[in-house]
């Protein structure tokens, strides 16, 4: 999903809504909130894996965006700019919580814990069916994402979830193309390491 998409027929373009917001029109901002809240909430949730906190932080991101709108020069897509604000909000929250850095997974960060029975299944055993196996893999992926540093989380989410091209990622973070590729490579290597048993068992 690219950062800037052409508006649907009959849909007011972001740029027009932004201009109205800059003139103080809160109803125009409500349209932007409705348009992007699902993506912002998903991105926030993937980073912290807590519904309540993700809801609150998404709110905070939109409020900060409203405050910053007068200085938004429209030199990037609105969503790219909004994404940057959201990432900073989440990053600050993570830093305050001091849960990044040591690489240890904090089990309290997820509301969707793996069922005790599922965790007790020894590696290599066949899951009862494909659906359960997929659900298990999904939880393992969420846990692995939560163990990454915020920078690695960000790069993985922008590339794999948002589907941004390297140049769009560089603009969103912002950083150089070299940094994008380097971070992406090491983030994927880290995920491979964390999910090694899943892929070895599946091979």
């Amino acid at each position, binding site marked *: 999903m690219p950062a800037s998409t052409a508006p649907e027929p009959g849909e007011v373009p972001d740029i027009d809504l932004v201009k109205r917001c800059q003139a103080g029109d809160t109803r125009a901002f*409500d349209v932007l909130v409705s348009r992007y809240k699902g993506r912002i*909430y998903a991105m926030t949730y993937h980073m912290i894996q807590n519904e309540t906190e993700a809801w609150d932080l998404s709110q905070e991101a939109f409020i900060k965006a409203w405050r910053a709108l*007068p200085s938004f020069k429209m030199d990037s897509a609105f969503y790219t700019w909004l994404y940057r604000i959201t990432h900073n909000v989440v990053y600050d929250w993570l830093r305050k919580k001091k849960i990044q850095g040591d690489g240890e997974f904090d089990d309290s960060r997820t509301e969707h814990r793996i069922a005790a029975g599922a965790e007790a299944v020894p590696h290599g055993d066949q899951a009862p069916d494909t659906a359960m196996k997929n659900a298990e893999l999904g939880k393992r992926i969420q846990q692995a994402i939560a163990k990454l540093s915020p920078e690695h989380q960000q790069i993985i989410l922008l590339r794999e979830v948002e589907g941004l091209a390297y140049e769009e990622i560089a603009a969103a973070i912002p950083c150089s193309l070299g940094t994008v590729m380097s971070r992406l490579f090491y983030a994927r290597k880290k995920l491979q390491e964390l999910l090694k048993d899943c892929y070895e068992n599946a091979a």
Partner: protein
Amino acid sequence: MKTPPEDHDLLRWLDGEMSAAERERFDARLAADPALKAEADMMQRLSADLRTHLPAEMPVPYGDFFNSQIQRRLAQEEDQAPVRVPASAGWLSWLRLQWLAPVGLAAVLIAAGLTTLKQGGIGIPEGGSDTYVHSIYVPNTAVHASTYHSTDAKATVLMLDGLEEMPADRKIVGFNITRGEVDQDVAATTLFDAEDNAVAVISKDARSQPVLLTSSPAR
């Protein structure tokens, strides 16, 4: 051990960032290097699984409440905030400021009064575009309003005493508002200058506060 450029090649291949020629060369390398091929396959599977299990968009719990909470907080901040003017807005954006609301109202009343005067032929020199202000109503009793008219300059200056201090960096230029038009359909008032150019369009926001929709650039 791979060198960084080789890492980047694998990455660019995986993410579809290679040209057709580059991709063809890398495919040949994969065919010749089983270890590289195994790593590429694993990374491809990982990417596919990430896309499957991490949706780009999720339904927000209590979505309507999410929106209304934001609107409530914006309204609270607007009530508490001293001044917030978009950098790109024209000079008339200060009509939005609460401390200038009485002045904004006065301007509209003056515009309406001038329209009446013009229609009635009172106080308007023949053949000229000069305007006089015969009476002013200012709701805020702390503000004293007076006018000065110069026939030579063909200008009327409105002076308001008792307002809060104007920001030193605010660029103010004069406009001679001669008439206003109210569009009931869109609930907006358009102010015109002596040359019948639209100077500003004013409306109200959801909380009935004046909102400047557009203004002509400062001259």
